[in-house]
C-alpha cells in the first residue's frame, strides 16, 4: 500500500510535530509513508470564507499530487472533511470534466488519521505509553463532519498509562470556525471561555483533539488565562512510547 501524508498547510507551518508523530506511528506499525513535496493546502479557508474560485487551483493540485497513492492520510478532521465534502463541489461547479473524475476517484482514498488506523489498518492499540490525565475534545468536523464517533476514544483508551477523563458538553463547538474567530472575535471568545472552563473542570493536564486549529484556539485561551493545561494533537499521544519523552 502506497501511503502519502497530507500534512496540511497549517500543520506544516505551525505544528510539524504532529506530522512527525503520524509518520512515527505508521512506521511503528510497519508502514512506509511518503511526503509528496508538491502538496500545499486543501483550500478550506478560501472555500469557507466565500472565495470559491480561488480554491480551485488547490483542488487541482491536490488531485495531481495525491492521485497516484492508495491512501492519503491527514491529521486534520476539518481538512479531510473539506476534501471529502467540498472538493467534489468545487470540481463540479468550477473545474474541468476530467477534474471531477480525478476528484471522485481520489476522495474515497483520503482518510483522517484515526479513521485510517481503525477502519483500514484495523488497529486500536498502537503501542503508545502516555502516563498523564488527558481529556478529548471532539471537534465539529470530527463529530458531525466525518462522524468519527468512538474511533479517537478507542485509540486513546488503548494507550498505556493514560488517565482519560470525559470533557463536559463535548459536542459543543469551541468557537474557532476559521475566519469566524477573526470576523466574530467576541462571540468566538465567549464560546472559547465556556470550552476552557470545561477543560479546566476535568483537571486534565493535556487536552487533545483531531484538529490542531481548534486546539490552537482553545490552547491560546488557556495560555492567556495562565493555566498549565497543554494542548496536543492526539497523534502525538499515540506516538509517545515508554522510551520517548513528549
Amino acid at each position, binding site marked *: 500500500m502506497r501511503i502519502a501524508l497530507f500534512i496540511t498547510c497549517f500543520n*506544516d507551518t505551525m505544528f510539524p510535530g504532529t506530522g512527525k508523530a503520524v509518520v512515527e506511528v505508521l512506521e511503528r506499525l510497519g508502514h512506509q509513508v511518503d511526503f509528496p*513535496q508538491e502538496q500545499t493546502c486543501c483550500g478550506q479557508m478560501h472555500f469557507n470564507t*466565500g472565495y470559491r474560485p*480561488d480554491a480551485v487551483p488547490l483542488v487541482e493540485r491536490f488531485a495531481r499530487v495525491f492521485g497516484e497513492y492508495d491512501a492519503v492520510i491527514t491529521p486534520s478532521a476539518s481538512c479531510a472533511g473539506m476534501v471529502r465534502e467540498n472538493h467534489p463541489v468545487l470540481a463540479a461547479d468550477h473545474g474541468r470534466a476530467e477534474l471531477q473524475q480525478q476528484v471522485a476517484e481520489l476522495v474515497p482514498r483520503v482518510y483522517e488519521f484515526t479513521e485510517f488506523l481503525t477502519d483500514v489498518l484495523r488497529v486500536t492499540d498502537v503501542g503508545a505509553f502516555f502516563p498523564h490525565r488527558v481529556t478529548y475534545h471532539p471537534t*465539529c468536523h470530527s463529530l458531525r463532519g466525518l462522524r468519527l464517533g468512538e474511533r479517537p476514544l478507542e485509540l486513546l483508551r488503548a494507550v498505556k498509562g493514560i488517565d482519560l477523563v470525559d470533557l463536559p458538553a463535548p459536542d459543543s463547538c469551541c468557537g474557532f470556525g476559521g475566519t469566524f474567530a477573526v470576523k466574530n472575535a*467576541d462571540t468566538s471568545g465567549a464560546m472559547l471561555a465556556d470550552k476552557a472552563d470545561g477543560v479546566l473542570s476535568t483537571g486534565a493536564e493535556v487536552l487533545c483533539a483531531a484538529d490542531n486549529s481548534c486546539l490552537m484556539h482553545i490552547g491560546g485561551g488557556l495560555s492567556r488565562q495562565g493555566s498549565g493545561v497543554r494542548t496536543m494533537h492526539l497523534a502525538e499521544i499515540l506516538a509517545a512510547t515508554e522510551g520517548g519523552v513528549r
Partner: protein
Amino acid sequence: MTGQGVVWLGSPSFPEAAREALKDGRLRANLKRATTTIRDKRLAVASELDDWEALRESAAAIKRRTARHLDRCLLQLEESVTAAGGTVHWAADADEANRIVTELVRATGESEVVKIKSMATQEIGLNEHLAEAGITAYETDLAELIVQLGDDRPSHILVPAIHKNRGEIRDLFTAEMGSWGRPAPDGLTDEPAALAEAARQHLREKFLRAKVAVSGANFAVADTGTVVVVESEGNGRMCLTLPETLITVMGIEKVVPTWSDLEVFLQLLPRSSTGERMNPYTSTWTGTTDGDGPQAFHLVLLDNGRTDTLADQGGRRALACIRCSACLNVCPVYERTGGHAYGSVYPGPIGAVLTPQLVGVEAAASLPFASTLCGACYDACPVKINIPEVLAHLRAEVVEAKGRSAEALAMKAAAVVLDSPRLLGAAQKAAALGGRVLARDGRIGRLPGPLHGWSDSRDTPQPPTESFRQWWRKNKEGSHEQP
C-alpha cells in the same frame, strides 16, 4: 420581488450587535438556561422514535416535491379554499399584504383585531401598519404579549421573549398591562402560574370582544383547502373560533400537497420545537362552516422574496423550514448572542440563511458569517436543511456582491502562495522569523490590526523554526522510493 420588513432598519452588523449583547450577563444566563432545557427535551423525545431519521427524510422529500410544483400546489390551494367558502388574496410583497389586510379589517368596520402568534405578520410588520391605519392589534400568544407590552422585539422564533426571565416579566405586566386593557392584579408574584393567570385575565376580555382575528399558518393543504395552526396555549384556538372574520397571512412555501403529508410534519414539529410528543392545540379549518366559527375567511398568500429564493439552486432548501426553532436552540452562537443581534425577524442559523435570501445578500451581508459551521443545526433540523452548506454558498454570494476589497486582495495573495510549495516555504520562513520577533516564552500575545480581535483573548504559539517540509527534506528525503 425582494422581501420587505424582514430586517430591522438601522440594525448594526452581526459582529457589532453581538459584542453589545455579549456584555449582558443576565441575557446570557437567561438564554443558556432556556436553550439547554429545551435542547435536552428535544433530544429525549426525538430519540424515542425508531423512525426519526426516516421521518426527517420524508419531510425533506415532501418539501422538495412541493417546491418543484409550487405553482400548481398554490393554484390548487386557491381552488380548494374558494370552494370551501374562503377568499384567497395574492400579495407580492409586504406592502401589498399589509394593504390587503388593512382593507379587509376596515371593511368590517372594526378598529381592533386579536392576533395569533405568526412569523409572517412579524415579517411584514403588520401591527405597525395597522396602527398607522388606526387599528389596534392585540397579540394573544403569551410570549408575543410580553414582547408587545415591552415595546420590544422578538428574539426567538418559538419563544419570542426567551431573553426575559420571570422577574422581568412580572415587572413588565405590573407596569404595562393597564395601558393595554385589564391591569395586572396587585401584588403579582413571579410564579409561572400567577403570571399565566394575569395574562389569562388580561386576554380573556379581548377574546370575548373581538370581531376580527389575524393569524399565520403552519401548513395549508392544497387538495382539501385546510389551513393548520399549531400552538401550545389554546389562545390561538380562541382567536380562530370566536371572531366573525378570520384573516390568515401565510408564506407561499407553507403549502403541502395532501392531508396525509401532515402526518409526517405533526410528528416532527412538536418534538423538534417544544420537545413535546404531541402538539397541545392543533387547529384545522377548511373555509367556513355555517353557524360554527368565523363566517368570513380570507387567506393572504405572501411571496415577499420567496420566489427569488426558490430560483436560487444553492439556497432554495431554506424554504423547507417549518419554523420549529430547533436550530436556534442548539446553536452555540445563538446561545451566546441571543436573537436580537441578527437584526432580523428570523434569528439564529435559519435566520442567517433565510434573511439574506429574502432581502438580498447586500442587506444582510454579515449574517452568513455569523456561524462557525459547526453543523449542530443541520443535525437538529427536522426537514434536513443543510444550513452550513447554504451558509457557505451565501458567503460566496456576499464576496461576489462586494467585489474588490482588502480581504479579497489578501485572499488572492494567499491563494497564490498556497498554490506554490516554494512560496509557501518562503512564507513559513518569514513566519518563523516574525514569530521570533513577536514571541515571549514561545507565545505571541496581543497583535495589532485585523488580528487584534483574535489576540484579545488568545495567545498564539510561536511558529516553529523548522516547518514539517524542512524537517522531512533534512531527515527523510531519499529514504523512500517515489511512486
